[in-house]
Each structure stands twice: as structure tokens, then as C-alpha cells.
């Protein structure tokens, strides 16, 4: 029983990380109507920033702040330089550009840091015991921080003027322009938030396993994208639920030795099954065609 609770907490924590990355995919998809395949590589850039910044400052909190800011800037630049010129172009052109941006970032990090794995000197907070439950502190921190961030983001979207504008743009770009909303600004803000969340996710990843290479962002990126699709791409609560679901499933399958080697296969199978039953994902809605 204790084992199950422990596994569940670990799963929720991993799910929180996936959710935070999935939010970046889903918000960009919902608002800019594009798949940012380079989103996973922002995680990688965040990781190397932590690597360098911890080396420079020694202070992990300062390093995390630097990583979040730098990733935010990267997200905005990515949108302005690579995607904005393609607004109105075919989805295929945008997709290919995004793949290009992804390779560019990976190649750059390989040139700068080499192809090998680097160890990041993240703080080790040890573990705490609650009764007979023994939990790593980083697991709890990840869990609590991701819940706080998700609640804050939901409140921001629902109640702030900018958040409402984000919903408006995701629903109807022309009508939003006619409200006096600057759609370009809203898209920029979306990329900024998504990239900053990716940097936070990167931090949590490294707390768990503190090593990094140029392809560091690929697997979490694909997993979180899967989570976003399971939840219904474009849906913010969907990304949260999809992320947590995938995290819990992953940790549970990993904890059963007989099926552990097939974890990735099982996750993608679940994706396929969910899409067969609900092509729009758990919370995705089919857009009503407008007259």
C-alpha cells in the first residue's frame, strides 16, 4: 500500500512536469494555430542555461531565474524570427520551419557544449519521512510548484484581460482584431509563457536526474506533446489532465518489472486508443463550423 502511494506521488510529480510542457504546446496550438515542434528544445536550452548559470553563480535559485528569463526571450525570438513571417502560410511550411528551428537549437548546443552528457550541479535536498512514507523533497517541490503554477495560469487566463484576449484569439482571430486586440502581441505573450513554463519543467527534470545532452528536450517534448493530444490539443485543462495522466501511467508501468521495458510503447498505445475513441482528445472540442 505504501509503495502504491509512493508511486502515485511520484507519478503526479512527473505528471506535473509533463503538464507544464504540454501547456506550452497546447497554448501555442490554440492561439497561434501551429505546432511548435521546437518546444522540447526550449527545455534543453533551459537545461544548459542552468548548467552554465549554476557554474557561474553557484546559487541555484538565481540560476533558475536566469534560465526562465532566457528561455522566455528564446520563445519570443523564435516566434518573431521564424514563425511570424510565416503567418498565413501553409501549415506544412510552418511545421517544417519548426522542425528546422529544433535542429538548429540542437546543433548549436552541440557546437557549444559538445555531444556528450554534462552533469548539472543541482541541489540535493534529500528526502523526508511521513509516517512510513519516504518521499524525495524534489518530488514534493515539483508537485506543489506545478499545482501552484497551473492554478495561477488558470486564474490568469480566466480573469485577466490578457487571459480573456487569449481565449478570444484562440476562438476567432478576425473577431478578436475587431475588438481592438493586437493578435500579434497575444501570440508573443503565449510563446513567452510557454517557454518560461518549459524552463521550469527543465529545472524539475534536472532535480530528478541532473545530466544533460543536446537531445535532452526530445523525449520530454514528445511525451508532453502526447499528453497535450490526449487531453485535447488546444485545451488548457486538457493539457493539465493529459500531463498528469501520462505521468502517473509512466511511473506505474515503470514500477512493475514485467512491463517496465515497454513503458513508452504502452504510453503511445494509450494515446492511439484514446484518439480512436475520442479523436479530439479527452477535453478537446470539435469546432463548430461557422456560417
Amino acid at each position, binding site marked *: 500500500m505504501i509503495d502504491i502511494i509512493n508511486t502515485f506521488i511520484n507519478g503526479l510529480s512527473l505528471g506535473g512536469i509533463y503538464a507544464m510542457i504540454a501547456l506550452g504546446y497546447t497554448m501555442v496550438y490554440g492561439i497561434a494555430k501551429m505546432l511548435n515542434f521546437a518546444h522540447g528544445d526550449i527545455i534543453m536550452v533551459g537545461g544548459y542555461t542552468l548548467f552554465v548559470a549554476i557554474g557561474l553563480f553557484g546559487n541555484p535559485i538565481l540560476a533558475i531565474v536566469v534560465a526562465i528569463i532566457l528561455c522566455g526571450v528564446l520563445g519570443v525570438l523564435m516566434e518573431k524570427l521564424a514563425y511570424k513571417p510565416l503567418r498565413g502560410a501553409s501549415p506544412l511550411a510552418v511545421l517544417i520551419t519548426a522542425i528546422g528551428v529544433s535542429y538548429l537549437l540542437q546543433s548549436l548546443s552541440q557546437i557549444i557544449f559538445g555531444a556528450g552528457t554534462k552533469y548539472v550541479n543541482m541541489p540535493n535536498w534529500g528526502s523526508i519521512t511521513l509516517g512510513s512514507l519516504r518521499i524525495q523533497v524534489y518530488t514534493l517541490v515539483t508537485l506543489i510548484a506545478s499545482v501552484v503554477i497551473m492554478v495561477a495560469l488558470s486564474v490568469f487566463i480566466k480573469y485577466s484581460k490578457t487571459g*480573456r484576449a487569449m481565449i478570444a484569439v484562440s476562438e*476567432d482571430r478576425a473577431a478578436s*482584431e475587431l475588438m481592438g486586440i*493586437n493578435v500579434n502581441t497575444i501570440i508573443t505573450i503565449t510563446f513567452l509563457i510557454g517557454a518560461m513554463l518549459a524552463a521550469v519543467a527543465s529545472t524539475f527534470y534536472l532535480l530528478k536526474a541532473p545530466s544533460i545532452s543536446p537531445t535532452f528536450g526530445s523525449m520530454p517534448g514528445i511525451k508532453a506533446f502526447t499528453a497535450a493530444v490526449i487531453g485535447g490539443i488546444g485545451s488548457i485543462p486538457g493539457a493539465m489532465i493529459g500531463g498528469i495522466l501520462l505521468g502517473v501511467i509512466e511511473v506505474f508501468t515503470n514500477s512493475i518489472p514485467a512491463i517496465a521495458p515497454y513503458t513508452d510503447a504502452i504510453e503511445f498505445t494509450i494515446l492511439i486508443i484514446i484518439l480512436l475513441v475520442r479523436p479530439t482528445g479527452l477535453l478537446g472540442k470539435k469546432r463548430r463550423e*461557422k456560417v
Partner: protein
Amino acid sequence: MALLEVKNLNVYYGVIQALKGISFEVNEGEIVALIGSNGSGKSSTMKAIMGLVHPKSGEVIYNGEKITHTPTCEIVKKGMTQVLEGRHIFQELTVHENLMLGAYARRDAEEKKNDIKKMFELFPRLEERKNQIAGTLSGGEQQMLAICRALMSKPKLLLLDEPSMGLSPILVKEVFDIIKEIHNRGTTILLVEQNASKALAICDKAYVLETGSITLSGTGSELRNNDKVKKAYLGGE
């Protein structure tokens, strides 16, 4: 000086030319109607004025200022907005949230509240449904909401694209009454309609569009008595 001047506007979609050098004027205080059959270019004209489609050549001058390349959101701030054909309300948001978005560019929080109250006086049915998700409103209510939402930006000039489309005769009458009411309260109106007889009855002047060109123009009553208009747009009375 005209409030809105459209000069020699050419709009293309790929190789298709939707507008072939259109010119017309809207003076302050007028109701101007654009009539024409499906596909004649009425919506394209409005979208080009608002910067939602980009004309290949020609000019749009609003209040003496050239706005041909001004972003839509800036044009709205200058006092002109449009109700799109097909309403385009934000389906997932409430009636109240839709109205607040209409005032997005405004900075006067207190005045906004007052204006929402005024909208609710004009449309009591919207007040009853103010916390309802807009996508669940009836077609007529959605049209009222779309009009109110546009009014929330306090436009000097309001562009209405087929506001009576898809509505029952009673609601069509209501929509036209409201257009008159908005006009009486001081808003200049450019109206696109397929319901030509109703549009010609309330407008000061009208232009007839045919496959991207203006072929006729005149006052509402001139056009209502024009044989060609009678035959093509008024059911050949």
C-alpha cells in the same frame, strides 16, 4: 469631408479579383447601404476597409487619415469597427465577457460599466442571459450580442455585414429597428444587406455591387424606384 472614403480599391484572393476598383464615400451621420447578390464583393469591401484583407491597390481614408495599411486593432481604436457576417461571437465566453472584450481597447473602467448597462437597457434579453455562455444563445440573441459588443468600442462608424441574415421576419424587423436606433443615437452606419428592400428603406444613400464593381448608386428612394434594382433585388415588383 467624408468620414470614410474608399478610393479605387482592388482586392484579390490569389488570382481571383474580388473587388475591381471600388470607390465610394460615407458622410458623418449617414446610413449608407451596399447591396448586391451573393459573391458580389460586399464582405470583401468591409474587410478591406477594416484591414482584415489587404487590398492590392487603392486607398481607405478614415477621418481624413489614410488607413490602408493600419492594423485592424488600431483602426478600431480610431473609432471604426465591424460586425462580421455570421456574427462571430466568442462562443465559449459569457455574454458579459463578450461585451467586456468589445471594450478591450478602452481604458475607462467606470464608463464601460455604464455602457454595459446601456446595452442591457437596449437589449433586456441580453441582461437576463448575461452569465450565460454565448454559444448557447439563439441566432437572434447572438446577432444582438454581436452588435452590442461592437458598440462597446464606442464607434463613430459602424460596419454591419448582413445583420439580418438567417433571422425570422420578426427578428429582421427588430434588427432594422435597432440599426435605426443606433443611428439616432449618433453612430454613422455602413450596412451590407441582401435584404435590399429593408436596407434601401432606411439608408440615405446606397451603392449596388455586381461582381466586384459598383454599377449603380443613388439615394435609397432613387434606387427603390430604379427598374433594374426592382427586377434584380426587390423581387421584380
